C-alpha cells in the first residue's frame, strides 16, 4: 500500500517564526489533504491539494505530484497553531495518514 512519511516528527517554534512541514508519499495519488489536530483532539481539514499551490491566510500548501511530495508552510506562527499536522494521501476517497508532525509554538 501507499507509504506516507512526514517530517520533522517534532517541531518547537517561537511565536512569530515560520515553518515548513514535509510529506513524502510512495505512489501516485489523486487525493492529498492536510489536517490539523488541535490540543483538544479535533481534526480540521486545512487543504485538499492533490497538486498545485493553495493559500489560506498564514497557511499555504504546495504539492508536486510528479515528485511525490507536499509541503505545508506556516508563516508568523501563533500559539493557536500548536497541535499535530497530518498529511493524508489516497487514490480516490480512501486516505492513508502519515504519523504526523507535532508542532509546539511558544509565546
Amino acid at each position, binding site marked *: 500500500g501507499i507509504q506516507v512519511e512526514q517530517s520533522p516528527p517534532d517541531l518547537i517554534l517561537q511565536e512569530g517564526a515560520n515553518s515548513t512541514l514535509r510529506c513524502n508519499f510512495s505512489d501516485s495519488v489523486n487525493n492529498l489533504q492536510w489536517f490539523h489536530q488541535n490540543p483538544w483532539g479535533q481534526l480540521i481539514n486545512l487543504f485538499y491539494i492533490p497538486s498545485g499551490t493553495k493559500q489560506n491566510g498564514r497557511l499555504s500548501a504546495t504539492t508536486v505530484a510528479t515528485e511525490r511530495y507536499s509541503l505545508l508552510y506556516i508563516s508568523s506562527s501563533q500559539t493557536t497553531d500548536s497541535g499535530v499536522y497530518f498529511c493524508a494521501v489516497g487514490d480516490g476517497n480512501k486516505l492513508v*495518514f502519515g504519523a504526523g508532525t507535532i508542532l509546539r509554538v511558544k509565546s
Partner: protein
Amino acid sequence: DAGITQSPRYKITETGRQVTLMCHQTWSHSYMFWYRQDLGHGLRLIYYSAAADITDKGEVPDGYVVSRSKTENFPLTLESATRSQTSVYFCASSDGGGYGYTFGSGTRLTVV
C-alpha cells in the same frame, strides 16, 4: 445543527462486551469513514462506505462490523471488545467531490 456528530464521547466497557459507536452526518455526504487513532500509528482506516448499503474494509477491519442502512448514519460495532481495541475512534464524511474530509469529535473507548 449541521455537521457530523459522534456518540458517546467517552465509553468504558469490559472485555467481551458488544459496543456500538454512533456517527451521524447532516450534509447527505455519500462517503463515510471510521478511523482509529493510536500513539505511534496515526489514523488507520477501519471501514468505509461509498453510499447506503455499500461498505468496504479498510486497513484494520478485524473485530469490527459496520452497517449503513441510511445515508446519514454509519454505526461501528465491536462485537466482542478486546483491550487492543482501546483507542480514539473518529468518524468522517466526504461528498466525494474533492472538497476534503470532515471529522467528528471522536469517541474515546477504553476496554478493561
